[in-house]
């Protein structure tokens, strides 16, 4: 693995770059931190030639627009360094991190701190997301312009919804002057109550308090109406309920500026996991909860028909001790960075739900567009943020060997088809899976 930027020519791989209409055998010449040329049978021109083992795919760097890096304040769960190490091992060249740290990222000081830690780690790019409200308390607006100037790419009160319709109206109006998205954790709090699982047969059978899908869709409908009123940009985080997907389709049909994301666990798992194979496994406790089959199937349909814009992981690391408690006392959330690519290949591409090009849109092109950040394209002159994927690699997920500081995944031991061969950020190979035979 070479950490220094240099000139190299990726040769002999399939390039999937939907932003530039490319899908085929193209060579990519990287010069320093940028893409120098893309074309067929490019001359080496003094660059080191990297012959690609067969079966690999080169695509614009994947961007996970919804992660929790936990720093500052909860470094026992994750740090910027361990979180970005997990990101690059998972094929992501960039992540956007939520502001529910301690203290909350509601001011330039915290934003700069996160960015400094990211620079020190020097792995994936980190795009902080600032808080909508000071302290995420849902009362006053945070200093949004200052957050933006210091490096935040969006605002969100993630972990909870923007507290009132009035505050949501104001933040959509205010951010419209920067064309910055407001990312919303849709959850009507009184309907959620003290629920811990999707309301339905499985929660009923296990005696767990339920959260109906409508807790999500009601808030989505409120926010879509406000986005229409204000012409602001709304992005709906971790959509889980079929009713919410209908709400998004309604909004899009009306021309509202609304986008949405789905996590791999919401298009792979259902609430049947609450009871089996391991009853009350706290690694299937997340918010929004795993929903029923009809919801899971709706998410797949939305991904297939284009209603879903982005796949994001909601990577939510928690220490093992915090999860080793009674189900209703455990924190919500699972890790996602190091399982996403395998789940996407196995359950979306190989299952025939989407093409590889569409997957690249969901994981790279569209998150870059929503956040308005560089990336999502391997055009000449673009940053050399490249993911090299191995669609047919057999992957067995092993929580213990993950780079994330936390191991709270329900996918431990799963065998899936599709993995990551290498991750290149700004022309530097920050992760290489030697098992693929790739030498960078």
């Amino acid at each position: 693995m070479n950490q220094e930027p240099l000139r190299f020519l990726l040769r002999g791989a399939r390039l999937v770059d939907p932003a530039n209409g490319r899908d085929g055998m193209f060579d990519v010449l990287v010069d320093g931190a940028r893409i120098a040329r893309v074309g067929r049978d490019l001359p080496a021109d003094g660059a080191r030639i990297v012959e690609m083992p067969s079966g690999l795919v080169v695509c614009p760097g994947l961007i996970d627009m919804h992660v929790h890096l936990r720093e500052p304040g909860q470094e026992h769960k994750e740090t910027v360094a361990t979180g970005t190490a997990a990101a690059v091992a998972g094929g992501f060249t960039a992540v956007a991190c939520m502001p529910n740290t301690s203290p909350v990222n509601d001011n330039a000081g915290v934003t700069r701190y996160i960015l400094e830690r990211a620079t020190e780690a020097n792995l994936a790019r980190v795009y902080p997301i600032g808080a909508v409200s000071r302290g995420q308390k849902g009362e006053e607006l945070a200093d949004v312009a200052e957050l933006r100037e210091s490096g935040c790419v969006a605002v969100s009160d993630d972990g909870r919804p923007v507290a009132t319709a009035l505050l949501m109206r104001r933040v959509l109006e205010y951010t419209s002057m920067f064309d910055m998205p407001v990312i919303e954790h849709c959850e009507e709090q009184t309907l959620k109550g003290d629920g811990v699982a999707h309301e339905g047969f499985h929660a009923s059978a296990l005696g767990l308090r339920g959260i109906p899908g409508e807790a999500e869709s009601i808030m989505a409908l409120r926010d879509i109406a406000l986005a229409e009123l204000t012409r602001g940009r709304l992005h709906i985080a971790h959509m889980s309920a079929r009713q919410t997907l209908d709400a998004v389709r309604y909004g899009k049909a009306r021309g509202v500026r609304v986008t949405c994301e789905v996590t791999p666990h919401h298009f792979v798992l259902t609430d049947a996991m609450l009871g089996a194979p391991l009853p009350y496994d706290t690694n299937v406790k997340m918010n929004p909860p795993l929903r029923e089959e009809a919801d899971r199937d709706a998410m797949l349909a939305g991904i297939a028909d284009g209603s879903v814009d982005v796949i994001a992981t909601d990577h939510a690391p928690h220490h093992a001790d915090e999860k080793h408690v009674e189900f209703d006392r455990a924190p919500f959330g699972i890790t996602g960075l190091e399982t996403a690519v395998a789940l996407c290949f196995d359950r979306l591409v190989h299952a025939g739900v989407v093409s590889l090009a569409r997957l690249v849109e969901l994981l790279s092109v569209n998150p870059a567009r929503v956040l308005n950040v560089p990336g999502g394209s391997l055009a000449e002159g673009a940053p050399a943020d490249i993911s090299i994927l191995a669609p047919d690699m057999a992957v067995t997920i092993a929580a213990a060997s993950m780079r994330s500081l936390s191991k709270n995944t329900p996918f431990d031991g799963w065998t899936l088809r599709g993995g990551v061969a290498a991750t290149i950020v700004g022309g530097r190979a920050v992760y290489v899976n030697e098992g693929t035979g790739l030498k960078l």
Partner: protein
Amino acid sequence: MKKDLLSIDDLTRDEIYLILDTTEAMREIGQRPIKKVPTLRGKTIVNLFYEPSTRTRTSFEIAEKRLSADTLNIAVATSSVQKGETLADTALNIEAMAPDMIVMRHASSGAGHLLSRICRSRIINAGDGMHEHPTQALLDAFTIREHKQRIEGLKVTIVGDLLHSRVLRSNVKLLTKLGAEVWVSGPPTLVPPGIERFGVRVSPRVDEAVAGADVIMMLRIQQERMHGAFIPSLREYFHTFGMTRARVALARPDVIIMHPGPMNRGVEIASDVADGPYSVILEQVANGVSVRMAVLYLLAGGVDVD
């Protein structure tokens, strides 16, 4: 039998009948002048109660003592739980003292499953959150069988706060497993979503639900349910769902009325019904000891105590 009794799901039909048959034998011990047998001598049983419970804890304790087990009660107020110890750590500490069985009552659904994954001791669930209370359902089944000589084909109507009730869940699983026709009735705010998938009939019309019933089982309504807007008032609840003599008259003439306790007279059940001729509420309590003796005995390995 499986290692633990966490849920009625852990029992096959045959095992349920084995427990009920063994209960007959255990009851006989309770009728002797010296109500004690040496069956579990040298066995240590920890009663770990995270929730206040008079009836269930006492019942288990008497059952354990009649079988000559060494018993130890840990109640939440006197334990290190107050110092912030996790259930997992408490379990490890108790496990280090090598008890043979742990009987646990806990406010969280699934707490027994967590304990079971940590402990080699056999775990008996004495009520976990809103999930299950398997020995209650077993003692209810024993009581029903004693009066009706069978369970299969009976119409059993369960009325009350279905949503928050672990007794409901265990009873529904057990009774449907044994072939009873189970009806449940309560305000729609207190019906668990998807409950019909258990194979029960759901009706908010209590009169319809009790019509022709062989067994009426009442569940407790907690005072604080008015806070979540589940019910407007206890007065209205009694008017709409309370078991009165008029409603009992809709059931079969030989209906029996059951209640797991503690009961709220004048809320879910009229006093004259609770104390009336069809009431078997105190028999349930008496049978509780015998059923728990049977469960302890069988879980310990029957005759061949391992």
